[in-house]
């Protein structure tokens, strides 16, 4: 029942060609330490499923992605994700461009072990043809024709939270859980990184049990990752790092910018990364974004 893994153990559980869902929302509560572990690995030909932010941009920049299934890719305050743009504008990236709600609907279908779920969303738009969406007809008197959103089955889901315990109980303390629950349930194996890993949640933090956003039967690996969402936000613990996001965005405009960013910022190890971006104290003090 001890689900703890090192970053190396985590990477060793993944393989080329897997479909990997990355939880969070744009620049918010992204499992960036796990993404960095993939960036430092030899993994390739991945299909990535996400409400994307710098997680998606970095994996594209590093050439890890064969296919991208996305509801959007944006850094919010920096609306256009620089490496996503580059990858799309270069051509040749296989994509499944979805409505934001399609994505969660496809995850729910996978979680509930259904082949599809019906929706009206997509009709009248180019998503119908680009994605080859099929329709179904209601068997009841209304006879309504609906889009059949296919299940988005994941081989692995990556999620970052404030706390986890050895058994895989998690607590996400922020005001918004996004669709993390459905990433967890849609995946064959779910890997959760946490700022703090305790032995038993019931011993340490029983009063926050409502922050348990999905049950531990959906968790297969727990990885301790202090500042693991950086440069995305982890409300209420720390805000996004606008300086870091700007530096990352600027790197896309330079010749060889990604290679330099990979060598000088992402670097060879996670502890070194935290130091290179200013240290844990600085990250803990990042102000929460206002909207």
């Amino acid at each position, binding site marked *: 029942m001890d689900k703890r893994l090192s970053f190396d153990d985590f990477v060793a559980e993944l393989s080329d060609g897997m479909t990997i869902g990355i939880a969070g*929302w744009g620049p918010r509560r992204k499992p960036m330490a796990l993404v960095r572990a993939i960036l430092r690995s030899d993994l390739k030909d991945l299909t990535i499923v996400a409400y994307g932010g710098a997680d998606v941009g970095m994996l594209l920049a590093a050439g890890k992605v064969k296919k991208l299934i*996305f*509801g*959007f*890719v*944006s850094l919010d305050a920096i*609306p*256009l994700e620089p490496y*996503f*743009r580059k990858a*799309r*504008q*270069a*051509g*040749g990236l296989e994509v499944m*461009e*979805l*409505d*934001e*709600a*399609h994505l*969660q609907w496809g995850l729910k279908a996978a979680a509930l072990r259904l082949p599809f779920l019906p*929706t*009206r*969303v*997509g*009709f*009248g*738009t*180019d*998503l119908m043809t*680009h994605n080859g969406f099929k*329709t179904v*007809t209601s068997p009841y008197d209304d*006879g*309504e*024709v*609906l889009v059949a959103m296919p299940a988005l089955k994941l081989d692995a889901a990556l999620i970052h939270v404030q706390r986890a315990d050895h058994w895989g109980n998690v607590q996400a303390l922020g*005001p*918004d*859980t*996004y*669709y993390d*629950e459905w990433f967890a349930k849609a995946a064959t194996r779910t890997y959760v990184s946490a700022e703090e890993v305790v032995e038993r949640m019931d011993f340490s933090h029983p009063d926050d049990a409502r922050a348990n956003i999905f049950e531990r039967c959906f968790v297969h690996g727990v990885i301790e990752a202090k500042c693991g969402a950086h440069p995305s936000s982890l*409300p209420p613990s720390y805000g996004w790092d606008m300086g870091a996001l700007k530096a990352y965005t600027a790197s896309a405009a330079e010749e060889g910018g990604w290679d330099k960013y990979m060598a000088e910022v992402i670097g060879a190890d996670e502890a070194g990364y935290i130091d290179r971006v200013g240290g844990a104290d600085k990250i803990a003090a990042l*102000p*929460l974004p*206002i*909207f």
Partner: protein
Amino acid sequence: MSNPTLAELLIVACSEAFRGNGEIVATGIGPIPRLGASLAKLTHTPELLMTDGEAWLVEEPVPIGPRAYDDRKASGYLPFSRYFDSAVWTGKRHAMVSPNQIDRFGQMNISALGGTYDKPKVMMLGARGFPGNTIHHANSMFVPGHSKRVFVEGEVDMVSSVGYNPARRVPGANYSGVDLRQMITDLCVMDFGGPDNAVRLVSVHPGVTVDQVKAETGFDLVLEGDVPTTRLPTADELAIIAKLDPHNVRASVIKDNPSADRKIAA
């Protein structure tokens, strides 16, 4: 009092789009639509629901620009995790958005411009929530730079939302939720009130001519008699706008921050 600016006139015009909408979530994306929705809630339509942009419903609209994180008081909870169930697919929402392109059918594009689908010339956000928003709830549009680049001649490059194009209607599908309301631009207000939802000119802003609007629009507009002039903000409205935008973000939305009446210097 100085003359109202065009930005302030536009905020009031945006607020009018939310008048009498009832208990629905009013979402204005960008400073002018957001100030418009907030003004509507503080004046003629207090029953509107609104969020702080993060996860909380508020009854006092949150001012735009820098502020303290905790200075909003939550009356309820509407996180992204239940947005589709609560506000979008239920039809309980009116969003005002600023797409890159709009066509005669009200189809919008925020996804990509030019090139091919495999290799777009300019990649933007992707379709985001537009397909679901437009088939389920009311939508209006704010366009700060009215031109043929936005109001295109043919269809938009990547149809990211459902409009009134009969060629794209699948028999048997339910389009009863499609509800395109107003388009507020730096020149005029338009809606889809013409025959078969054709785009109609509702009003022109002070100092703007109908011919000017026609020249900047890539498709024909329905004109019904004399086109009225968009009304100016009242002193009360200007005072509320100033409170909602204490850092004067609105002054940076329209180039050179012109006066509401183009014939008068700001």
